[in-house]
């Protein structure tokens, strides 16, 4: 190959340099944030003059933060469950059946991904105002479900398309009812796709802020909404601590999914 790494000579070092720079560029903001969350400067001086765990202690002492955290978690959990369930039935419909306008329907399902989020947020706000869903947990769940569903459909229908329906036919001829064949054979086989759908659905809700700001009320706030609010009112290193925890949680989820994928490849 023309661009074999070992044949690049001096260019190799340039290439490594560029890679390293891009990596740093991507990671640096997060590293600064993590450092700030452990720094003892009230005004988020960088580099931090000293180190402390005070902001984390403040965070866990503040019931509002805990409440926002639990709210976010609850909403994200509901969104995950609903998005996977709906994504699953929708994918079976889109992949396995042949009906006129199938491609149009598929495009419609993916629409929320293409629309600017803020447009969606305004539209939902106007609609939910009439339905009196603004400021309710149900409103949050429905709004986030709209954002999560396309991701879920893409990932599950992708897995389903790669799964040969003859395998399901084989299970049926073996004596399994069509439903039993789907549950015992097809579902386990497309599990990596379902896991990815769950992960992305969770994250779509967990770190979503635009729609959430429209949905939120003083009584009910998700974590990103509260971070946004606190940032605007009083800049406190507690925000850095919260953000660090969010980054940590997301990283753990990503690592988990990577591990699952690896296991799937080996199986």
């Amino acid at each position, binding site marked *: 190959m023309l661009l074999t790494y070992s044949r690049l000579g001096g260019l190799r070092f340039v290439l490594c340099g560029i890679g390293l720079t891009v990596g740093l560029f991507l990671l640096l903001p997060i590293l600064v944030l993590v450092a700030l969350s452990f720094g003892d400067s009230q005004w988020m001086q960088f580099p931090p003059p000293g180190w402390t765990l005070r902001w984390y202690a403040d965070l866990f002492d503040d019931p509002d933060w805990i409440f926002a955290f639990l709210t976010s978690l609850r909403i994200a959990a509901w969104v995950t469950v609903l998005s996977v369930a709906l994504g699953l039935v929708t994918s079976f419909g889109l992949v396995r059946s042949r009906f006129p306008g199938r491609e149009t329907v598929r495009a419609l399902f993916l629409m929320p991904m293409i629309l600017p989020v803020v447009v969606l947020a305004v539209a939902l706000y106007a609609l939910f105002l009439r339905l009196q869903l603004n400021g309710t947990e149900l409103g949050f769940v429905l709004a986030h479900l709209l954002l999560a569903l396309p991701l879920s459909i893409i990932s599950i229908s992708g897995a389903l398309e790669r799964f040969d329906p003859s395998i399901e036919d*084989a299970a049926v001829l073996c004596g399994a009812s069509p439903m*039993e064949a789907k549950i015992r054979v097809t579902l386990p*086989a497309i599990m990596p796709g379902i896991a990815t759908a769950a992960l992305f659905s969770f994250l779509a809700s967990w770190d979503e802020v635009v729609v959430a700001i429209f949905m939120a009320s003083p009584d009910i706030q998700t974590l990103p909404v509260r971070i946004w609010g606190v940032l605007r009112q009083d800049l406190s290193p507690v925000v850095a601590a919260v953000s660090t925890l969010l980054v940590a949680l997301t990283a753990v989820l990503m690592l988990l999914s990577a591990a699952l994928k690896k296991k799937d490849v080996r199986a």
Partner: protein
Amino acid sequence: MRSPSSPPSDHPFLAIQGIRRSYGSVVAVEAVTLDVARGEFVTFLGPSGSGKSTTLYVIAGFQEPNSGDVLIEGRSILNTPSNKRNIGMVFQRYTLFPQMTIAENIGFPLKVRRRSRADIDARVKVMLRLVQLEAYADRKPAQLSGGQQQRVALARALAYEPPLLLMDEPLSALDKSLRDELQHEIKRVHHETGVTILYVTHDQEEALHLSDRIALFRQGRIEQLGTGRDLYDAPASRFVAGFIGHSNFMPCRIDRERGAVDGAILLDDGTPVSGVSLAAMPAQCERGVLMVRPDAIRLHNPDSAPAGAILGTIDEASFRGEAMQYSVATAWGESLTVRTPCGGTGRARVGERVALAWQPEQAQIFPN
């Protein structure tokens, strides 16, 4: 011994009656009728799109026929869902359940039939031994070769002792040597289990090697049904003659005024051909093709040729192991293929003038 409720024995084990299946304006199966005896190995042979797979899928219950019926022991199975038909099937593609081990795959049909753990284990062992894969019980399908996967699929399809096994081109994804090995294996399993097998293939050698009877499909119909020998020795049409084995086709003219048998057929260069029966030819048909198998033709020295021999020049000679194959250019421009067993008479050389002759009963004439 028969129980009082068994159907009378004059029912064939499997009866396919006038199956027709179309997709919109495309007719996949025009009219297929066929009786299969218990324990028989019947192959559906034909080019792709001839309706053989569709017929199999109708029997499996994945396709509904527009009309016609399928009966097992005298009872229609068309209203029984696929999973209740108790039919085994091996597919063209690899259809093992990817997340289950080999043993779990074979045990799956028994598990859905709610058999006991001990029953399943015992039966899985028997099946693994049948396909000689005992050592692979705990592997996953992805760790097996294609040939091994199809053997597992065979074991899984037979685990619940179905009376009927359908095989849809199970070897077409494998390479030649593996195909031969698995054909042997399938034959042995058929012999050991006595299961009735319907086997779809487009490979005539596979069909000839495996089957008790072959149903040769063409455009949604069975063109001819019979043993491999029947189809080879007495093809019912030009299509059958061309599909099974190699054939030489010579365009010819029929002159009925010259007699019913002798001299009625004239090759395009004017050579009269005698002794070939015109029974298969419609009365008004004046043009036809004369078919002779390459191994029915004998090469002669032009000087000592029998009467009615055709003259030609050898333009290609190739060694085929047990036989020599010659291509002989004829006076009317077409080449004929001739196969002669090696040894015995001496070999002809390229460029040599030869005379070709055959026994009249080994030639057949078909409408053009």
